[in-house]
């Protein structure tokens, strides 16, 4: 019997396991389906990781290595090349691995940290031929950075998520010509700094409100046709132009990988495509917690780590019998207006809470000089001003728990209002 089984050995899972070990849990297992821990960080060789958490700028592999070394100092057991097949509500976990075959383990708590995967061409219904040379940006990143294969010479990037932007720079450094980044939305899905240091630095044009309307080529991609789209995202006739490329990289969104969560019967939030969670990252199934990109897609690994630590500490508290007291009051957080979701979706108050709870959310459009307003019915209980908010950047507010003690309604509304000029 394990005190805790963590599903996934990426940044979220490593942080959760380490935090739980620090809280005194003795028997902790991380099941990781890859041959090494670290998850996606291992292929993210660029720098910019850890500015919040370590207060220094690290590359992805360096960030991962720090956590792997911390884990190695604990009693945490890691099964590599081992994929979890099933997590049951009674906290039994079945898995299959190269070394030990099929195994079923019982646990006192479970942390789900499976991360996310990329949306593919099949999810987009782009017209045109189906030749070789169409890859997701993350697949290309793995080929180029880990396995040592160059994926193309003349590249068009569809979508402007961070991985696509990072790969635009990476492919340029490796000698490829990146012709354009084509984004259907009127704004980029990536961080502003990545637009600057990946596209602007390399004079790569970003076509906003544009999409691909045709892909040509029999065996290999030979070119694409791009066009402007209208407000309903329909291509505008007469605006087409062609780009002669041999490769298309897709950076069109990430989907939390929640097959196990759904199979376990855990309630899912269709906006985040992750589980509903309480402020301690517990799902609606007692003893099962979730953290990182499997809950909602983050921009920064630093916040994934912090979320993982919260989940790990909460799992330890659950096992030690000190969490989810029966008399706790539940308050729902309701995303309103330009706020598209919140994580957590629920807060549990025990009445003597100190400190604050971080609430993450995204906005639906670019907002300059906005105020994030938290309301209890008609009453404003907190407000946070922001100079600039965009859908591509996750927002975070820290809700003071002492304020929440006074909340009368069963839910709090979170909206964004324009600051009156």
């Amino acid at each position, binding site marked *: 019997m394990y005190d805790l089984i963590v599903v996934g050995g990426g940044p979220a899972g490593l942080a959760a396991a380490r935090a739980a070990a620090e809280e005194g849990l003795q028997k902790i297992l991380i099941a990781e389906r890859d041959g090494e821990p670290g998850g996606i960080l291992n292929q993210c060789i660029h720098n910019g990781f850890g500015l919040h958490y370590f207060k220094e700028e690290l590359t992805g592999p*360096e960030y991962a*290595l720090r956590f792997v070394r911390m884990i190695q100092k604990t009693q945490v057991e890691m099964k590599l090349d081992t994929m979890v097949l099933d997590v049951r509500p009674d906290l039994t976990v079945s898995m299959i691995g190269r070394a030990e075959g099929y195994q079923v383990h019982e646990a006192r708590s479970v942390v789900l940290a499976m991360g996310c995967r990329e949306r593919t061409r099949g999810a987009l219904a782009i017209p045109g031929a189906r030749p070789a040379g169409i890859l997701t940006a993350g697949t290309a990143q793995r080929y180029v*950075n*880990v396995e040592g294969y160059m994926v193309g010479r003349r590249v068009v990037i569809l979508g402007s998520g961070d991985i696509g932007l990072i790969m635009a720079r990476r492919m340029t*450094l490796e000698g490829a010509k990146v012709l354009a980044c084509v984004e259907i939305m009127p704004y980029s899905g990536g961080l*502003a700094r990545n637009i600057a240091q990946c596209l602007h630095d390399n004079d790569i044009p970003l076509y906003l409100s544009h999409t691909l309307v045709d892909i040509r080529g029999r065996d290999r991609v030979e070119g694409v046709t791009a066009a402007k789209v209208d407000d309903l995202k329909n291509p505008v006739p007469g605006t087409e132009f062609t780009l002669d490329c041999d490769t298309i990289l897709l950076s069109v969104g990430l989907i939390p990988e929640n097959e196990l969560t759904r199979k376990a019967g855990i309630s899912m939030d269709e906006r985040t495509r992750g589980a509903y969670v309480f402020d301690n990252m517990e799902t609606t199934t007692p003893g099962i917690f979730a953290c990182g990109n499997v809950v909602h897609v983050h921009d920064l690994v630093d916040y994934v780590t912090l979320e993982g630590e919260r989940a790990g500490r909460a799992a330890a508290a659950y096992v030690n019998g000190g969490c989810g007291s029966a008399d706790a009051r539940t308050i729902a957080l309701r995303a309103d207006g330009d706020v598209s979701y919140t994580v957590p979706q629920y807060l549990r108050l025990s009445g003597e809470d100190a400190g604050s709870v971080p609430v993450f959310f995204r906005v639906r459009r670019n907002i300059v000089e906005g105020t994030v307003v938290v309301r209890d019915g008609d009453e404003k209980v907190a407000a946070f001003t922001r100079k600039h908010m965009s859908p591509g950047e996750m927002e975070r507010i820290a809700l003071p728990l002492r304020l929440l003690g006074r909340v009368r309604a069963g839910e709090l509304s979170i909206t964004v209002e324009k600051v009156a000029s």
Partner: protein
Amino acid sequence: MKEIIREMICIVCPNGCRLTVDDSGEIGGYQCERGLGYARDETVNPTRVLTSTVRVIGGVHRRCPVKTDRPVPKGLLMKAMERVNAVELTAPVECGQIILGNLLGTESNLVTTREIGRAKEIISEAQAP
């Protein structure tokens, strides 16, 4: 009235502050000293940390990621890549190993950013193309 002559996005941290430079050279829009420093450098001598990979022989992976341990002038990045591409390491590789010192006279070193263990034979066969 001062006129904004240049706008840029700060890349020092993920906040992505929108920086401005006016015609008197005054910098605005930054939220920290590092942002101010970035804007100054960017107007005089823009620099970037270079990250890439080098070839590894006999490792569990065929590439080892590397970075420059300090930023190098933007104009030298492609030339630096020529040096990076000529490097060949033999596993095992430690994280933080200096593999090229004083890259192109910039006082920046090229260092490895992960460990690459030696491949057991079975693994290297399975990974060979």
